[in-house]
């Protein structure tokens, strides 16, 4: 997709749309983000380093990124199964199930947080069965992961669905006639074909999880060093009027997220290299 300014196009207006894109991105995304960096600039390097290397802050980064990656990973696996079922098999109530996938999108995050906490708390519906097994779901890193998995699911399912729909059932039959087993067909034929979409879904779910605040603060219990996520620390600092400290944590969060998403995009680009060649 190389579009040069000179290339004639049926639809004119490249200049107009590019200009609009730049202004829009600038106003909505770039200028607010740069304010973040300006605010942080009020700190000296030493102060900046002091804030972000605090053990409590480091612990929150570990939890945020660790739980987000884990949740996105869980969603990649189970979201695949959900998407596969929805695409491949007709069953009664399919539309309802399909709609239910979108619920985490639509629900206010605080509502999902309270609901999850109620269920996974030691006296909740599921929590009371986990408690005797020695599993503490709510108020633990596990609870954070559960909340982040919940909010990330639709991203994986919705990006995978079109890719799976595009996959003709004949290629599975072709693999079978060539002597491939079911697992070989899955590993060698189906998975590579939908891998770009799967990676995109993973990336989106991950990005969403890193920024998630509302649903997590209820289920995590917010114990410093243990179940405190980075966005919560930022809010805490803001409440103490420590704007520079809050932005310092945010800048690191932003930079790390940006790098990870860039990496995921590169991975997606690499895995789809064959799809771009021709039709």
């Amino acid at each position, binding site marked *: 997709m190389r579009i040069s300014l000179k290339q004639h196009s049926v639809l004119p207006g490249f200049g107009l749309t590019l200009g609009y894109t730049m202004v829009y991105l600038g106003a909505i995304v770039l200028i607010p983000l740069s304010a973040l960096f300006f605010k942080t600039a009020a700190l000296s390097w030493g102060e900046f380093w002091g804030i972000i290397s605090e053990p409590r802050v480091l612990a929150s980064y570990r939890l945020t990124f660790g739980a987000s990656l884990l949740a996105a990973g869980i969603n990649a696996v189970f979201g695949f199964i959900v998407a596969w079922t929805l695409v491949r098999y007709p069953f009664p109530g399919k539309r309802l199930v399909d709609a239910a996938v979108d619920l985490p999108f639509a629900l206010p995050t605080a509502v999902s947080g309270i609901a999850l906490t109620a269920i996974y708390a030691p006296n909740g519906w599921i929590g009371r069965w986990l408690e005797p097994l020695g599993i503490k779901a709510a108020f633990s890193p596990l609870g954070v992961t559960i909340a982040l998995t919940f909010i990330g699911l639709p991203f994986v399912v919705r990006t995978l669905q079109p890719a799976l729909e595009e996959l003709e059932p*004949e290629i599975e*039959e*072709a693999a079978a*006639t*060539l*002597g*491939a*087993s079911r697992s070989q067909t899955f590993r*060698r034929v189906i998975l590579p074909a939908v891998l770009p979409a799967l990676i995109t879904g993973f990336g989106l779910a991950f990005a969403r999880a890193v920024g998630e605040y509302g649903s997590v603060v209820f289920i995590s219990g917010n114990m410093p060093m243990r179940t405190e996520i980075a966005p919560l620390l930022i809010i805490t600092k803001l409440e103490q009027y420590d704007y520079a400290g809050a932005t310092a944590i945010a800048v690191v969060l932003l930079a790390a997220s940006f790098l990870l998403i860039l990496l995921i995009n590169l991975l997606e680009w690499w895995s789809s290299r064959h799809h771009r*060649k021709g039709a």
Partner: protein
Amino acid sequence: MSIEVHHLTKTFGTFAALRDVSLTVLSGELVAILGPSGSGKTTLLRIIAGLERPDEGSGPILFHEKDMARRNVGDRQVGFVFQHYALFRHMSVFENVAFGLRVRARFSRPSKQQIRLKVQQLLSLVQMEGMAERYPGQLSGGQRQRVALARALAVEPKVLLLDEPFGALDAKVRQELRRWLRRLHDEISITSVFVTHDQDEALELADRVVVMNQGAVEQIGTPDELFHHPKTEFVMSFLGQVNRFHGRVEGGKVLFASITVSTPRLEGAPAGHARVFIRPHELDLDLQENGRPGLKAFVLRIYSAGPTVRLELAAESGETFLAELSQDRFQALKISAGSTIFVAPRDLRVFGSGNGR
């Protein structure tokens, strides 16, 4: 390896896709299954391949006298070529062809060199040398179908099954590929069955043709037999162009479109209502009546671009039909649109209500 299927029945819900179909394909033969869409031809092919299961109570599916009905697709040693190629898009041409060898169990898997050699041989067999590193998206339709064929042949199948192999290609590529496939078949002499809805393709390519209609076999025979001795009305009208008249059989003669013809070809049609079939090239045209039973007709339209000239004619009774004549004859007659001519059938076939389907 020979293929035999006996009394196959297949129903999808309430739709009977196959009704009591039996068929024998001899070893090394190239057989076409010909029929309109919905005639069950693809279902039959898929059942032979093992991609579909026949209904309970169907007879055996024998490959070289061994029953395969309970075997899985992968164990039947069939090569299957799909209408829309079904190539693996994320794999290069080389990887596609090598797939069947790579997925073998470790003890029977060939070495890397053997695979490389085998794939190269196959690619040169299908005339795709030098394309090994390309991806399916970079190939034309005909090239993709050749890769699909090489991929199917890589597992050294005993039987090659092709589902509308040229269906998605344009007319010129189709014809080339058709002849090429015939030569390839003669070269490697593998028992092959292909499905098509194109009568020219079936008649040109196959040793024998199975004509199917509404889930049942109408007739099996060589292209010659089918064209010259069709057993049913369906076969008659499906193979080649044909004019159909409504008439009556009376006292060993047939009456239609204001003429009476006595013909030995009554095909046992009983007295009463009958349908008369005449191929366009079996009509003799003349400017004057020549004593033979003929009918008067008006020339509606002339199609003279081609090796023969086709005329669209209207009989006095109002029926329109086609006649075909050589360019020379057409020049000699000096016919133009609007002329009146006399048409005498040289040959015809009659199907009565009894034996027509």
